Every structure is written in C-alpha cells, then in structure tokens.
C-alpha cells in the first residue's frame, strides 16, 4: 500500500506559490513531492502543517529545492528539519505565523 500523500498548490496574491502537503512523506511518496517541486517555478512556500510523517527521503527532496522554497513546519516535524540542518538553509516558519517580509 503506497503511503497516503496529497499536494495542494495554489498561488498567493503576492505571486508566491504555496504548496500544501498532507499525509506521510517517505521513500515511497518522496518522488511525487519532488515532481511537484520541479513543476513549480519561482518562490515557493511548502506548507508541511498537515504532514504526519517526514523522513530523510522527504528531507533530501527539500534539500534539492532549498534555493527557492520556504517551509512551514509544524512542531511534530521540527526535530527532523533541525537535525538535518535544512532549517539553516531555508526559511522556516511555524504554522499560522506571518510570512517573512
């Protein structure tokens, strides 16, 4: 059974694309995430608020796109982002916080 996973990209008024991800990101679902990030040009906010599981497979995809993404990371996933060092490369916000100016 493949990992449950869904993507919801939509444009913000400021032209930033927001990609809302839900479900679990593991080695079975990471390729789909990678594909979605490839397809989106320009600044991208990846909202992980609804993600229940994220492991090194997903982190690796996010590292590949670190140059153009910002992350919204819920508390549950914070250790993974911090431990991997991804938080030092990309802008990370908590859920509900205002986007950086």
């Amino acid at each position, binding site marked *: 059974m493949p990992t449950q996973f869904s993507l919801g990209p939509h444009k913000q008024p400021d032209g930033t694309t927001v990609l809302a991800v839900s479900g679990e990101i593991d080695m079975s679902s990471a390729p789909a995430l990678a594909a979605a990030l490839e397809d989106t040009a320009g600044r991208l906010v990846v909202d992980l608020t609804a993600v229940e599981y*994220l492991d*090194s497979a997903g982190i690796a995809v996010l590292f590949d796109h670190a140059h153009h993404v910002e992350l919204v990371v819920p508390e549950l996933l914070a*250790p993974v982002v911090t431990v991997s060092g991804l938080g030092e490369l990309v802008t990370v916000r908590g859920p509900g916080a205002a986007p950086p100016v």
Partner: protein
Amino acid sequence: MCEVTEVRVAGSDDGDDSSTADVFVTGGDVTRDLAAVDWSATPLGPPAEWPQSLQTAVDILVSSRFSMWMAWGPRLTFFCNAAYRRDTLGRKYPWALGRPASEVWAEIWDDIGPRIDTVLSTGQATWDEGLLLYLERSGYPEESYHTFSYSPLRDDAGAVVGMLCVVREDTERVIAERRMTTLRDLGSDPSVVRTEQQMLTFTSRQLGRNRRDLPFTATYLFGEDGLARKAASTGFADGHPAAPAELVVGDAASVWPAAGPARDEPVVVDLKGTPFTGLPTGDWPEPPSQALLVPLLQPGATPYGFLVAGLNRYRPLDDTYRGFVELVAGHIAAGIGSARSYRAQQRRAEELTELDRAKTVFFSNISHEFRTPLTLIMGPLEDLRSRVGATDERAGQDLDVIHRNGLRLGKLVNSLLDFSRLEAGRMQGRFEPVDLSAVTTELAGVFRSAIDKAGLRLDVDTPPLGRQVHLDRGLWEKVIFNLLSNALKFTFEGAITVAVRADHDQAVVTVEDTGIGVPEDELPRLFQRFHRIENVRARSTEGSGIGLALAQEIVSMHGGTITADSVAGEGSTFTILLPFGSAHLPAESLIPAGGTTVAPDASAYVQEALRWLPDSTATGSRSAQEPPSGLQVASTGATRVLVADDNADMREYLTRLLSDAGYQVTAVIDGQEALEAARATTFDLVVSDVMMPRLDGLALVAALREDPRTASMPALLLSARAGQEASIEGLHAGADDYLIKPFAAAELLARVRANIELARLRTHQARWRTALVDSLQEAFFVCDADGAVIEINAAFTEILGYGSEGLPYYPVHPWWPDPVTDPQGHQAVADAFATLVGQSSGTYTIPVTHRDGHRLWARAAFSQAQDPDTGQAVIVGTFRDVTAEHYAIQRDNALASMSTRLAEATTLADALSAALSELKDLWRAEAVLGVVFGDGDEPAVSQAGASLRWQDLSDERRRVLTELWDGPLLAPVSDHTWSGIVLEHPRGRLVLWIDLGTRRPFTDEDRLLLSLLAGHVGPSLTRAHQIDQQRETAVALQRAILGPSELPAGFAVRYEPATQPLEVGGDWYDTVTLPDGRIGIVVGDCVGRGLPAAAVMGQLRSACRALLLTDPRPAQTLMALDRFAAKLDGALCTTVFCGVLDPVTGHLSYSTAGHPPGIIAGSDGSTALLEGGRSLPLGVRPGRARPAAEHTIPARATLLLYTDGLVERRRRSLDEGIERAGRVLHDGRAKPVEDLAGDLMTRLAPAAGYDDDVALLLYRHPGPLEVSFPAEPAELGRVRKALRSWLSQCQLDTLQAQNVLVAAGEACANAVEHGHRDSPGEIVRLRAEAFADRLHLSVADTGRWKTADASSGRHRGHGIAFMRAMTQNVTITTTADGTTVDMQIRIV
C-alpha cells in the same frame, strides 16, 4: 500448596499374602519369624505396601552374616538378622521383631536413644567402639561391650526414616584383655620382689587396679596354729567385718569357710547376711552377690592359704571367670613359694660364706700337712699299682686315676707350699755351678714325649756356653717345667723352641712357642700371682695361676730377670737372663757342683701335661670307657642332665655317678659345647665346671639365662675355687647352686636332685604358662623391643605356617605381604608394625602371607610389657585369623555401599555411573568401564569419571570386551591387570570391566565380591530403568497438560514441581487466546503433589480452558469450575486465578478462587495487588456466585501471578512472602520478562530449594510488537501504522512517539533499500519491546549495508543521523546473514 497430604506412590490396597512372602525371600529362621510378625499392627503396615527402600534394607539386613539390626518408620520398628539374634538379642528373640526399638532396648535406651536421634536428625552416621552397655538378655543386667555404627536409612524420596546398626559384640575381647592385663601386671615384676610381704603388697596393688573383675579381694595365709591370717586385701576399708584379721579354719561361724580351700577345694559363697552388708562395689553400682574362695596351692603340700575374690555380679561365674581367679591365685601362690625359697637360698649363701672363710683359714694353716698323707698315699699306691694293676684291669684303671690325681694334688700342694714359702721369705736357694746348656737340654727332654704327642715339634738349641752359671737345680727345674708346661698348654700347632746362648756377661735362656700368644693388655700382669687369662683357647684350664709368678720369684733369687714377648695369635717368647759367676749370690748359699739331677715332681708335670692331650698314653688303657664328648649315656630315667667339664677324669666320674643315679647324662668338654647342647635340647639340669676353655662356667650360665629358650634351665656350678666371692659370683651369674670341689658323691647327688625338684617347682608357673599359651586358640607372640619375634605358640604356627624352629624372626618378617606385588598390603603391615613398636598397646587388622603363599587377614592385639627375667621391654601380642570375617565385612560393606549409591540414583545413567564409580573406589582401579551391547550401531561406553566412546578404545580392549560379552552372565573373568563381568542391562548386555593397573592380584575373594556386586547392580539398573520410563511417561503427560506450548507476546512463565524426579505437580498456569483477541489467563494450585495432583490439575486445566472459550467471563468460568471440581476426586480446595486480558488496552477482568493476589509493578516504581474478585477455593460452596474485579494494567507495568509455593515459607507470613516477591518484581521491572522470571525463581528460592510446587506467570503491558514485511517501499506505511498504534499503548507523548517513528522508519527504509537492490521481497523484521523505563527497537534484514552507496547516498546520511538523534543508543551489526539495527529509547 496449602496443605500436604501423604501420597503413596507405590503399593496397592489389597494386602495379598504372596507379596508378604516376596519381601522375605532370604531363607533362615529370622526370615520365617519376620514373616510371622503381624506387620499390619505396626506403623509400617503389611509388607506388600512397604516402599522399595524398606524392602531393600530388610533384604540386605537378613542376608548379611554380619550382626545388624535396623529400625524403620515413625516408631522405629525393630528388625534384626540371624547374627544379631545369636550374638546380642538372646532371650528377646523373637519377641523383639516388629516392636518399637525403644521397647526392645528399653534398658539401654538412655545410651542409644540420643545416638539414634542424631542419625535421624542429621543423617550422619555414628560410631562407637567398645561401648559398655548393661543388657538384660539373659535374665540379669549383663556387662557387655559393643562396637557399632548407626547409619541413616532413607525412604524412596530420600528422607531419613530409619537407621541401620552394624554391630560387633566385643564383650569377650574386652573382658579377656582386662583379665590378661591383670595377669600380665601380676607377672610383671617379681625380680625385685624379695620378701613375702613385698610380694603381697605388689600383688594387691595390681589386683586393686582391676576393680571390675575383682571388686574386692582378701588373701589369707594358713598358720601352724589353725588360724588363717589376712596377709593382704583390696577394696575393703579398714576393719570391714567381711575382712577380719584372723579366721579359725574349720569354724562354721567364721566369715569365710576356710576349710574348703584348706582341702584344695574352691568354694563359692553367696554374700547374704550380716558380715556382708556394705561390701565394696568395685567399679560397679552394686556390690558382688557372690565371692569365690580359691586355695593358694603349694605343690605337694597343703595350700599356703586362700584368696577371697568378690565377683562381678554383671558377669556369670563361668569357666573363664573361674579360671581367671584361679590364675590370680596361682600367681600369688607362686610368688609366696618364690619368696620363701629365696629366703632359704639366702640363708644357704650365708652358710657357704662362713664355710669358705673357715676353709681358707684351714688351708693356710695346714696345707703343708698335706704332704705327709700324700706321701703315705702315693707310696703304697705305687706299690699297689705294680702288684694289682697287672692282674685286675678294673682295679688297675681306678688306681691309675688315683695315682694321676695324687700326683697332681702333690704338685698343687708343692706349688702352694713353694709359694707360701716365697711369700714368707723362707725359701732358701742352694746354688751350685752348672753347665746351663746341659741342664736345660736335659730338662727339655723330659717334655719331649708330651710335646711329640701333641703333634708339636721341640727344638732345642743349646750350644755350650763355656762358662758356668750358679743355679739351684731344683728351683731351675720348676722354672723350665712351668714355661714348657705353659707353652704346651697354649700351643696347638708349630713348635716349641728352647735355646740357650751367652750374651756378654749373661746367659740367655729362651722358651718360645707358636701358640695363641698373650693379648697385649694382659702382658703387664702376666707374672702376677694367681693371675690367669680367662676364656682363651687352651688344652686345659687346670692350673693355679702361680706358675709364672713362681718362675719370676725363682729367677729373681738367681739374680736374673724373666720377660715375656708375645703377639696374640702368633706365639710367645719368655726370655731369662742369668748372670754368669756367683758374685751376685750370697756366699753362704753357694754349694759345690754335684747335686740331684731330676726333681722328684718332674713326673707330676709331665703326667699332668699328657692328660691334656687326646688319646693320651697315660690314660690310654681307659679311654675306651670314657664316653666321647657330647654323646648321651642312655638311661632309664627321663630326667636329663648335661655335664660340662674339661677334665676328662671329672667328666667321666660325674657321668658315671649321675648315670648310676638314674639320670640321662650328656657330657661335653667345655662351655661352648654345653651351650650348643642346651639350645638344641632341653635339660633338667646343667652341671658345669667353672674353669673351662673357650666358655667358662660363669659365661655359660649367663648365656643360658640370656636366651629365652634356656633361661629357666637350672645350672649347678662345680669349682675348686672356694670362697665367698666365688660363690656369690656364681649365683650372680644365675647359677642355681654352687658346689665346691672336692665333694662327696652323695652330696653331689643330693644337690642335683634338690635343684631339679626346686626348678620344677619354680618353673611350674612357667610351664603352666607355656602350656596355656600353647593351648590358646589365638596365635601368641612375643617381640623384643626391635620387633623381632622371639616366642610363638602352636596356633601361631598353625595360622602362619612359621614354626618356632625359625625363631627369632627379624623384621621385615617373612609373613609381610610382598612389597612388589602388594605394596598397599605391605604398607598396611608396615604402619601396623610402627604402632606395635611405638605404642604401649593397640589392635589392628592386617593382611599377612602364609608360608605357603596364601593371603590371610589377622586381627592382632598387643601390649608392651617388661620381661621379668631380663627387665627388657618386650611386646606381647595375640592375633587370630579373621580372613573369613574380613572378607565377609568387606563384602557386606561393599554391598551396603553399592546399594546406597544405587538407591540414590534416579536415572538409569546415574545408576550405572554410581555403580562404576563404586567399583572404581572399591578396587582403587585405574578405570572402570561399563559397556552396553544394545540395539545401537556400536556398544555404548560409560566410564567412571570421564566420557568415552567405543571407537576411542583400543582394538585389543574392544576385542576383550566383546569376548566378555559373549561369555556367561555374572561369571567374573580376570587377567593380571583387569577383571570383568557380564550382567543384564535394560538395553542389552552390560560388560563391567575393571582396569586394575599393575598393582594387585585379583583373588577369589575379589571375584566372589564382584559377582555379588554385579548381582546387585543388575536389578538396580532395571529399577532405575523403570523409574526412567515412569518419568518419561509422566513428563510427556505433564508437557501435554501443563501449559500452552506457545505463549502470547509479553508473557513469561516458570514451573517447578516439588517432587523429584517427576517433573509434574499440582500447580499450573495457562493462557488462552480468545476469539475476540483477548487472552484468558489462568494460574492454579491443586492440593497435594506428585502424579495424583498432576492428574487432577490436568483435568481442571482442560476444563477451565474450555469454559473460558465458551464464556470469557472469569467469575462465570470459576463458578462452572466449582461444579466440575465438586465431582472430581482431589480437586476440592484447588485455588485458581482466572482473568481475561485485553492486550491492546491492558484491561484485565478477573476473579480468584482462594488464590494469592497478583502483583503489578508499575513503570513509576509503584506496586499494587490484585485484591478484588476474591472468594473461596474451588468446590467448597458450589453454586455460590463469585465476584469479579477489573483492573487496567498501566503501560510498561509488569503483572505477576503465582502459586503459593513461590512465596509461602514456614514460620513466615504469606504477606511477607508477597511483599518479597513484589520487591523482586519491582527491581526487575526494567529487565526482559524472561530474565525477570528467572530472577524471581532464584531470588525467592529457599536455601534448600523449593519444597512445594511453584508456578509463576509474568506479563508486561504492552507485549512486544513484532512486524515482518517484504522489503518493498510500499510496505513502510503499514509498518508505521502498526508501530504508531503500539507506541500509543506504551503511552509515549506525541513528539517522542514521532521521533521513534522516524528512527524506526529510517531503519526500515534502509532495510528496504538493501532488499530492493540485492534480493527484492526478502523479509524485514521489526521488533519493539517496552520496559518500565525504555523501549527497545530492532530492525533486521538479510542484506548488507554499504556506508557510501552512490545510488542512494544523498540522503542516507540523514537517515542514520536521524536514528542517532532520535534514540539513545544505536548499534548496527552486520553479519553474513544480514544487518540488524538496535536502538534504545529512554522514556522521559
């Protein structure tokens, strides 16, 4: 278990008589009488129900020939065998059989009861040697001694339920030794006892030391006035009416009937009435009830008196007791006789001294008066010889003797007179000028014939000197004759040389011989008056010792000197220097030349010299009549006399005199021959001259006294040497009498007769002792201080084959075992010998070798003693042949030991191993093999102490073993180095093979023992085999009924039955997985133990399981089980815990039937008891509703359920035990449940192990998660879901749960990647286990990780980093079989 009831494993309900007979199969009266006992009336019940152990013990007992009894069961029911009946039980048989031992031995129960208690309570054997017990087996309290050991007897379960006593009665030995000691002490010291009173005091002291056999004694001596006076007593206080100072013999009113002993008759007196109150009790609680009066016998006369001996009331007055008292009396009588005869002897010695003094005075006054009568004898005698000698041969011979001895007497008288004249200065020389050469040649010529006769050469070298020497010719002759006579006496081969020469102004005369010479230290005293060199080889010892002194005096009168040079063994030279001329002589003593030519006594010198020579012409006419030396003169009389005298006349005279008096005479020529004759034959008297060559009379007597064979041979010394000193010297040397020459024939005969009779009286005791010793059944020996055997008796020779002709036997004695073939036996004897010479007394049992080579065992007892004659320490001992007894004991011990070891064995392998090691120990074998030739491919080999396979054995050994296997059963076969036997084994034939090494022979006794042992081993193996089978069956049954073969996750169990060797019991645990996923948990405990309880347990367990499946409500299940239990025998009062657990939530509903509460140890360190839902044990109130309770087991808490065997201890409350279990549970909450279960069993076990069945069940919530999945990425989501759910059961917070999830996810992803790459679809296993304080995760795959993997390396680094970041301890283990990741997560 709550209660314990006795369970009989073996046996049956029906008391059938045929099985009674089976128990008592060994034949004999005792077996019959045992079978006749109404056993059902005893606590042991009918024999058919007896346990095997009792049957075996009884069988061993009755079949043993060694004295044994045993007691069994709660009242110590008494059994004994035939030997015990015969030796000890006496009249109590057969009454005693089957009775309580305390009743059988009521009178000694105070002594033996505590010993038996010790055996029963400690299981340790006791040992008592020679214990004094008062037995009432013959109708009165009897002094008895026993050596015995009590050893424990165990029942089939190994508990001590009885005792076996192996006993040897020592009464005879102890009492005999005690009496022997008294007799020995009595005889120990007579040599210093001089007077009668000293002797009696000594005797009393000795008798007073044996207060057991002689509680009191009194010695009365008869006086001539009709009174008997008390001379000594023991035990009595002064003035006791039973020991008056005087008794009137024949007075019926006196205390003791002295008339009986006065007539030589012993009398037994019953001690009743007035004079006998308050009698001494000796060493006993009660005084004697009888006294024995025995006469003090005086040979050939009325008794000296009598001995009153108070008798030990605890021993019968049997022959040995009576004999002992009589021997004591004999000692006293002999002592009195010896003291009185000593007194007489002393008086005689005083008289002799006086006589000698008078004689000396007489001699010195009138010796010169002899010459007149001698002249008047010799003159007519010459005349008579010439007239009668030619016509009457017999008279002529007698006259020759008279003539010869007349001459000798005359010469002695002359010498004495010369000497006394010299001494008085009255001798006047009359010197005339002579030709010294001519005179000396003439004188030497007189001796020529005698010297020729002696086979010697006489060389005379006397050239004319040309000058004259002034001599008194008569005196000069004495000088030359004395020198020649001496030379002839001491020279046995070679020559005697007489030479005369001139040397300046002196004439030199030498007399030289090649004789025995004179020792250097004797030279200075050679010319002393009366000095004689003792004990040298000479033709005769006749002589006065004044010859050389006289010669020196004479030479000195002539103004000359005489000197002697000598080398011992080569010869002597006497040199006389005489001045020429007469200037040195007083003028008035000079006379002109022309005196007599030959001195009148020249013939006396020559005659005398000729008598020294054998076959002398002077005595030739009667030599035929003299008996040759050493030849016995036959005589009708049996009394044998040995005569030793170097003087042929005297020898002949004595022989004739004694033969005519009826004695059987043996005559010898000197002391040495006499000694040899006396050692070879026993003589009643030795009559010896004092002065003899080689060994003189005094030395002869001393030598006789030194040798025990001749020490008691009386000796009568004859000597011409009168005087006090001489006779005292003779008596000191040990001579019995001393007779001075000349003596009258009648006096000699009287003395001879008196001495023979006196010696017979004196040696009466010794002869009696010899007869007594020879009549002993036991071998008797006496050793000197160095251990050399110097005396033995007939039994000694009979037992060992060594006779008295070989005495003395020096150590190492010839009967010691050979040190090469039997080093152990040799050592045993060497050790015993060390105690023999090193200790004052002792006993030992040793192996000895008969002269013909066969092996014996002897039990010896010995004591140090002092030889009363010599004062030297000797060892006196006895021994008897205990070979049969020794082997019987050895067999019995070996059989008992083997039986014990076999009885302890619980399996066939144990039994065989026990038998092998027992055999190994018994024969001290190098190795013992047991080889079973069964159905297998190759024989199964067992070895005592090591493992071994058939193929490890040498070809030769395999061949030997196979040959043995082919041979007959139970027939021992042996070779020099091994022995073997074949017996039946449950799996085929068993060959027992004993490697004896090279050390000892395997005797017939060994073979007998081996076959007996093998006979025991066979049935024991069968028994062990049966037990094995029983147990295997039981174990199979138990495994079938005990519990689930697979436990649900999270559970751990332990089970330990109390009854070994069976691994089943009445406790159980069970888990049942219910259709809804919940788990039924049951822990129960049936009453009792062993197989019957297990049978009940099995049924209850099955029922409970079925009931739970039907209706998974604990209270209802127990209620249904109540009804079931009420109908099931033995199920009543079973306690049960029944619960239903939801493994997801930890929810537990439960109900308990009288079962101890479960314990829960929480992750936070708290403990709680499951105390709800309690009601009565099963079946007590069937139909009554049971309560149920609920409890939710918190995450990571541990539940313990158990039976009371785990916690119940004697004299401790159950709560205490539960608390202790709670602590162990608490301490182990962070350990895996399997380990914790082990901890509980170990830490709660009593020191001696569990004495009750124990079952325990542990559950930790939640149980471990185990997920297996194919190595596919798509599986990961499902695995995560399961893990997430388990983590929630563990009640981890969300964030920590997420971290665990990531760490596990990374590990799984790695495994899937390897699976993808190398072997897609391989199984990956995830396991997660909770502990109180942590989780443990492991992920295992079959692949191999690569640290730098190009295809997937980009993010794999993150994966491992995540694992390390999210958990506390990550280890990755890669082996050929795959990779395992282990992670520990501490729970905060």
